[in-house]
């Protein structure tokens, strides 16, 4: 007994100094959650991203705008591990190098993504969609014997209320309206409990009322989570009120609040000049 205690003490003596290396969790000690530096991606000679630099602070709500082909979706692909950049570095917090991680690893580390087209599981019920997304051990052997407990049920029903689908839990997700599908996907994202949410055109196809409610939801999420929103809807971006980054031809053209960006002559040229 005493021997094992001394061993444990010895272990504890060593571990603090190695703790950083032993458990490479998310480190946001510099108050920055995402660093992209000099990221370039080209497809058959076309530069989708050209030395892109971007940093997102913890708890920030950032909007990304830009004309079609500016590289918004490719940027999301790089962050989530779908596309490997040709050059440049991409860090989640201080320590996690996203260019060396797979999609599931990145999702586990705490980055959630909502796609442009709502991609929910149409053959599953609304409830099952949320259950699949829930943060838990997602290995195959665990899923074989997994059984939803009451905390899990509570979490799902809380999320159902938040996304206003509590009456639709057992409905097949494919039968929801377009706006409801968008909300369901946002709900699935929240079930993953990510620190960073990437949202690609989250209000496309929503009614004005739904859009406004989505904006309110995002504002309540900011602070606790960091959000990166790609949108075309300027009224929605104005409602969100965060910092705006304008992408053009794969790099950052301008950055600042919406009014400053809209007054920038280069931005006006890019948007109106074509």
């Amino acid at each position, binding site marked *: 007994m005493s021997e094992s205690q001394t061993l444990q003490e010895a272990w504890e003596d060593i571990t603090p100094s190695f703790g950083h290396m032993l458990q490479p969790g998310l480190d946001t000690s510099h108050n920055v959650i995402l660093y992209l530096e000099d990221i370039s991606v080209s497809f058959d000679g076309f530069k989708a991203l050209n030395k892109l630099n971007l940093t997102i602070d913890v708890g920030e709500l950032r909007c990304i705008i830009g004309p079609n082909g500016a590289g918004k979706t490719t940027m999301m692909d790089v962050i989530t591990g779908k596309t490997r950049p040709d050059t440049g570095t991409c860090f989640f917090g201080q320590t996690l190098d996203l260019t060396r991680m797979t999609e599931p690893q990145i999702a586990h580390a705490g980055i959630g993504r909502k796609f442009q087209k709502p991609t929910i599981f149409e053959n599953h019920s609304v409830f099952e969609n949320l259950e699949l997304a829930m*943060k838990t051990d997602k290995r195959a052997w665990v899923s074989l014997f997994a059984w939803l407990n009451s905390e899990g049920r509570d979490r799902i029903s809380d999320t159902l209320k938040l996304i206003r689908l509590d009456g639709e839990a057992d409905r097949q997700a494919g039968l929801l309206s377009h706006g409801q599908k968008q909300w369901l996907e946002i709900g699935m994202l929240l079930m993953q409990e990510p620190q960073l949410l990437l949202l690609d055109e989250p209000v496309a196809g929503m009614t004005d009322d739904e859009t406004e409610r989505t904006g309110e939801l995002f504002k309540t999420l900011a602070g606790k989570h960091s959000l990166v929103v790609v949108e075309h809807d300027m009224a929605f971006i104005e409602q969100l009120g965060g910092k705006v980054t304008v992408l053009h031809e794969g790099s950052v053209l301008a950055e600042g609040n919406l009014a400053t960006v809209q007054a920038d002559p280069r931005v006006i040229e890019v948007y109106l000049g074509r």
Partner: protein
Amino acid sequence: MRTPFIIRLLSAMPRSGWIALAVFAAITLVVMPALHLWVPESSPFHVSTYVITLGGKILCYAIVALAMDLIWGYAGILSLGHGVFFALGGYVFGMYLMRQIGTDGSYQSLLPDFMVFLDWKELPWYWGVSDSFPLTLLLVLAVPALVAYVFGYFAFRSRIKGVYFSIITQALTFAAMLLFFRNETGFGGNNGFTDFKRILGHDITSPGMRVILFSLSALVLMLTLLLSRYLVTSKFGRVLAAIRDSESRVMFMGYNPLHYKLVIWALSAMLCGIAGALYVPQVGIINPSEMSPANSIEIAIWVAVGGRGTLIGPVIGAALVNLSKSYFTVAFPEYWLFFLGALFVGVTLWLPEGVVGLWKRIKARSAA
């Protein structure tokens, strides 16, 4: 509080399903064996050897169809090479049966006849454990699962999907067939294994042994059905269906589809292997034609006819197609393949959900 496993298993199937299963068990485990063994042949209630053998064959095919449905219907991976796993299970058990012949073969040698014919003096190393019944059973499970695992690992890791995957599974079974056709491979070349005499020292053609193999096939089918039912109603099954519908979305949720696919793929191959091992002693022969590409395509047709993505469908499909096969190949032997092709085209065009889908439609119409 954790729900006991037995309750989970019970709740995986509705009451009507359990009743149907009990009826099936009574017929295959009690009624048919009794009618075969203890009712005299002159009686109209006697179940003939032909019926028992055909029934046992179809039960084995039904297990294969279920295994195919797990991978195709629920994980969306169309394998056109499942015949190879069935044949591997059959060959492994066939090796045991060859050793059981002992010195009763034509050459009165301890070696199987084809080895004497090739002038081999001793058993190749991979025949090493073929005289042990328990080790043979272990290999029946392990060999197909291992081959599937290795093949699946490279295919799924390279993210090969859809029709490309189907084509390489066809290539797999074709390559295996060519390998087994060679005499030097050591599995009897194009004649394969036959003339089996006994299992565990008992005569393989005795009525009692036939009934045991028949009932064992029925029992394995029922266990496979329960296992499948548990799998598809578990979270594992919901993740699989999600991978089928949108694999990249599943990855961005933090699941690694590779492991999910590998588990169900290897399990499916293992079930095929068990079916093959039950099949060989009942039909009395195994040869490389079981690995022909057409055989594997036929498995997919059983599942499509019955209704993929349902569990009872493939069982019904396997039974329907094989019953009509045994009728057609006797009545109009040259038209069977045309009929099979027409059936597949017809089902694809008009019955996308197979016989089970048709049944559901009729029920919905009469309810409305």
